[in-house]
């Protein structure tokens, strides 16, 4: 499989009040083809910052460094802001967590999709509208023409997230980073949105980085899983082999998952060893 994204020793550090830098991501390495990679970890483990660093959306005061950070042969660290912007949306898309906050409240959803397309393609308004409607249909929205004119507060969470997916896929990127795309949704809607995402990623042969804290979701949905702890990858494992995970942290996460009919007293608690963060 050809390598789409190559990340070697990625570090992201934020300045604190004293001017020292605190590392949120501390040397993450992985390579990605056109496959589905899951990144799991608890809050603050650096999984989201890893995704944002790839897109070039890290806050300006932060420091990003890596031995290698290439996308399809393009050195992202050496690329100019304009070059990185040209990649965003067009070749790398990102789905954010909560459509309530991640859609512009004063612009109707159709125009937000159109805008994503017109940022990268010279497409007339009418043609762009047609494509946006087709994209809305592709994310299984029933009456696209009607939904096109709705504002974000007028759509449900599940529909909002489908709009978000439509917006990020309309320019046909090669890689999609989904940052907790279903965490803000009702459980019943989660599966629906995931299956749409799954189908589109498969149809278009895209690479996918699926960031989540839901281990079970990731293992059923991805080919490979990175387990992150305190800014580092502690284990990389094929999703199918997750049950045979070696690392104590991964096993701890797994044993947190409840099973029907199981009695557990006391509840298992995640153990954390400062050694893992070394």
């Amino acid at each position, binding site marked *: 499989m050809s390598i789409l994204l190559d990340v070697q020793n990625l570090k992201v550090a934020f300045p604190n009040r004293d001017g020292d830098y605190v590392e949120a991501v501390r040397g993450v390495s992985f390579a990605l083809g056109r496959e589905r990679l899951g990144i799991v970890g608890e809050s603050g483990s650096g999984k989201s910052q890893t995704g944002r660093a790839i897109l070039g959306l890290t806050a300006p005061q932060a420091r990003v460094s890596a031995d290698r950070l290439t996308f399809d042969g393009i050195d992202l660290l050496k690329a100019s802001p304009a070059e990185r*912007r040209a990649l*965003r949306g067009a070749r790398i898309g990102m789905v954010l967590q909560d459509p309530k906050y991640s859609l*512009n409240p*004063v612009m109707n959803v159709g125009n937000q999709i159109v*805008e994503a397309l017109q940022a990268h393609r010279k497409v007339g308004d009418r043609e762009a509208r047609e494509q946006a409607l087709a994209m809305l249909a592709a994310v299984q929205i029933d009456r696209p023409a009607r939904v096109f004119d709705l*504002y974000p507060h007028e759509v449900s969470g599940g529909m909002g997230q489908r709009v978000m997916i439509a917006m990020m896929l309309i320019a046909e990127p090669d890689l999609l980073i989904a940052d907790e795309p279903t965490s803000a949704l009702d459980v019943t809607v989660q599966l629906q949105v995931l299956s749409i995402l799954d189908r589109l990623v498969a149809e278009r042969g895209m690479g996918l980085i699926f960031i989540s804290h839901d281990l079970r979701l990731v293992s059923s949905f991805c080919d490979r899983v990175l387990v992150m702890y305190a800014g580092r990858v502690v284990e990389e494992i094929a999703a199918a082999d997750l049950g045979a995970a070696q690392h104590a942290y991964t096993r701890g996460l797994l044993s947190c998952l409840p099973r029907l009919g199981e009695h557990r007293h006391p509840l298992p608690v995640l153990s954390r060893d400062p050694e893992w963060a070394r």
Partner: protein
Amino acid sequence: MTALFTDRPGGRTSVRLRRFAGALGRFLGAVVLTYLGLLAVTFFIGRVIPIDPVLAIVGDRAPEHVIQRVREELGLNLPLWKQFVIYLGKVLQGDFGTSVLSSNPVMQDIRRVFPATLELATLGTVIGAGIGIPLGVWAAVRRGGIADQLVRVMALIGYSVPIFWLGLMALVVFYARLGWVGGPGRIDVVYEYTVTPWSGIMLLDTAIAGEWEAFANALSHLILPASLLGYFSMAYISRMTRSFMLNELAQEYIVTARAKGLSESRIIWRHALRNAAVPLVTVVALSYAGLLEGSVLTETVFAWPGLGLYITNSLQNADMNAVLGGTIVVGSVFIGLNLLSDLLYRTLDPRTRAR
């Protein structure tokens, strides 16, 4: 909201129309109530202040029967509620009584002074918002940069330097020394009677009459006080714009816009400012209303025959009809601008549209 999706096609329009009518009804009700409140307050102020309107007319040496007659003519012997009803009726017809000071109907005086203030306040607000908003945006985008410092210093000066001092200094420099602008007053005496005061707004009247020389002269008189007021509102508006923009730029939808690969200018102007515009409407409207009240100090320094000067003069001369008339105008300005900003809210923010 589910109903929006399940109802028959076309149902949405009629639902929207009905909701709009309801909102309009509620809104008009609120306006009427606010007006009643305003008039009640002005009425009772007129009754409780220790100025006898009869004495103000007849003088304090008039014989008792004259005082009594005038009192009855003014309706002051009637019960208070009856007086209020009569007062309401008169005000609704635009009758604010006669000014003791000018012996004109107060309405006529206000027609003369209000356009002067309107012209000054409008240009002041155009300058204040026209420069203040872009400056505030710039300050927010380049946080900690030159523009940010400039906005900070400007706002500091705006808050701390008295306007009359700055006005006098501006007159000394730009009028007396450099001769770049016209001095006090609205227009040079030469042009004073060449133009018929159709609207009372000098720029409009001279433009309609095609008297471009007079127009230029009026503008040269207007520009300095308007810039001065504009400076103060700019100081405020730019600070507020900055803080609204900082708030919007930190929102998640900005991350989305970046992830889509939009240009920075589109993100700033079309996404962030478009959202910041909603609270900005209130800020600009309030600042405009503040200027429309008439700024006594500026009007005094520039000998500008506006509302602020009129109300202050009337107050000092116990000319209560004029004061109350002026107060009603100021109140109406506030109500009107509230109405306007409400309408703007509805156009700018889909979430506030009839629910």
